[in-house]
């Protein structure tokens, strides 16, 4: 469990970071290191150069507008858990952060690193997808924005191009009439999820967003269930819509996993719709 040899750079500006990432074959970005270091130890990653993003300006910033809050990619899970950064989601981000790993990991692991890695069982991708967040991405040719559903392509696969760096996420503010639900099923507190149900009812006329996380691929929006919920369906009709969506999201799931998925999403819906 010792990392292989690599070089290390800690650029102070974005252009220097792009140059380092693109100028060296096999270079990788280093966020909080809380996934990358275990991967190095297990030798499933073998970068020639680690480009430490810790000194880049702005990555830890949080900025607010009337409609959205931008959370920097370098903001740690612990900072969100403690509420030291503004929360656009009326408590959902804080709740999700507190359930990720353990405090010593949350002190250093970042929201951007978790999304860039796109571990299928990770919490942030499912949560940010449910919140309809938009990723802000910087590359040598400038910035671009991608909604989470366009960024997340599959297990450990995102639309980030070589050399691109996640700067942060624009998260819409939930209004006073909004509701959310979050249910993470894991073997123990802090472990990666076996299943995640995430529900956001924006409450401003916008349709509900229902997400199933911890599939074998990327987190999935459940469209038929969302439509059923919007029509006010419950009981067997909603359950059938959920089962269809779960089947589409993870066709290979065995009956145990299907039951887990159904349970987490149903619990998240119950939480979001309870008085």
């Amino acid at each position, binding site marked *: 469990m010792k990392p292989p040899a690599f070089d290390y750079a800690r650029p102070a500006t974005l252009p220097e970071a792009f140059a380092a990432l693109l100028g060296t074959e096999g270079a990788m970005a280093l966020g909080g290191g809380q996934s990358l270091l275990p991967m*190095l130890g297990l030798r499933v990653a073998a970068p020639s150069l680690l480009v430490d993003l810790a000194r880049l300006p702005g990555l830890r910033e949080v900025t607010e507008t009337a409609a959205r809050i931008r959370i920097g990619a370098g903001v740690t899970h612990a900072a969100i858990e403690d509420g030291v950064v503004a929360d656009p989601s009326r408590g959902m981000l804080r709740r999700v952060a507190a359930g990720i790993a353990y405090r010593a990991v949350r002190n250093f692991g970042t929201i951007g690193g978790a999304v860039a890695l796109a571990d299928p069982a990770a919490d942030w991708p499912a949560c940010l997808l449910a919140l309809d967040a938009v990723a802000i991405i910087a590359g040598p040719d400038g910035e671009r924005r991608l909604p989470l559903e366009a960024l997340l392509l599959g297990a450990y696969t995102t639309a980030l191009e070589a050399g691109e760096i996640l700067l942060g996420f624009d998260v819409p503010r939930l209004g006073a009439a909004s509701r959310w639900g979050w249910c993470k099923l894991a073997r123990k507190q802090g472990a990666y999820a076996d299943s995640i149900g995430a529900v956001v009812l924006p409450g401003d006329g916008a349709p509900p967003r229902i997400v199933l996380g911890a599939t074998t691929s990327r987190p999935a929006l459940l469209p038929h269930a969302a439509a059923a919920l919007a029509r006010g369906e419950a009981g067997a009709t909603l359950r059938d819509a959920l089962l269809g969506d779960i089947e589409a999201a993870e066709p290979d799931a065995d009956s145990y996993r299907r039951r887990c998925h159904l349970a987490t999403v149903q619990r998240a819906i119950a939480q979001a719709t309870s008085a």
Partner: protein
Amino acid sequence: MTRINLTLNGRAQHREVEPRQTLADFLRDGCDLTGTHLGCEHGACGACTVLIDGLPARSCIHLAVRADGCDVRSIEGLRDDPLTVLLRRHFHEAHALQCGYCTPGMLVTARDILRRFPAPDEATIRRELAGQICRCTGYVGIVEAIRRAGAELANQPS
């Protein structure tokens, strides 16, 4: 090799490290601070937990080069820390250790729990200890020691 300047257990240190070296190996092999224990070496067991700028950190998944400019405190540097002294007494009295392998990480984590949760109840302690694995005690003594230390703190006139 990369030069790093850090404060280690209260003293300034100037060292050369290889980028691949973890903070845990730097402490144990480079500084002879073997109180930092290694169990899983991938962030799961908590034996290697130290403080970086006052925050608990897994030293096995932290690069030593990143400690440049930081204040690092291992269990050796907490000898006279009042909270740790209190916890040590309660660990002793509640039989919170057997082999002691997990204890340095337990103490660092317990200290953080008491700083974030005044007089924590058993459920809080168990939730916050989820990332610290002990193979000997069955946790009952550890949880009780932290609970008693928190209760004693809460009863102290401030």
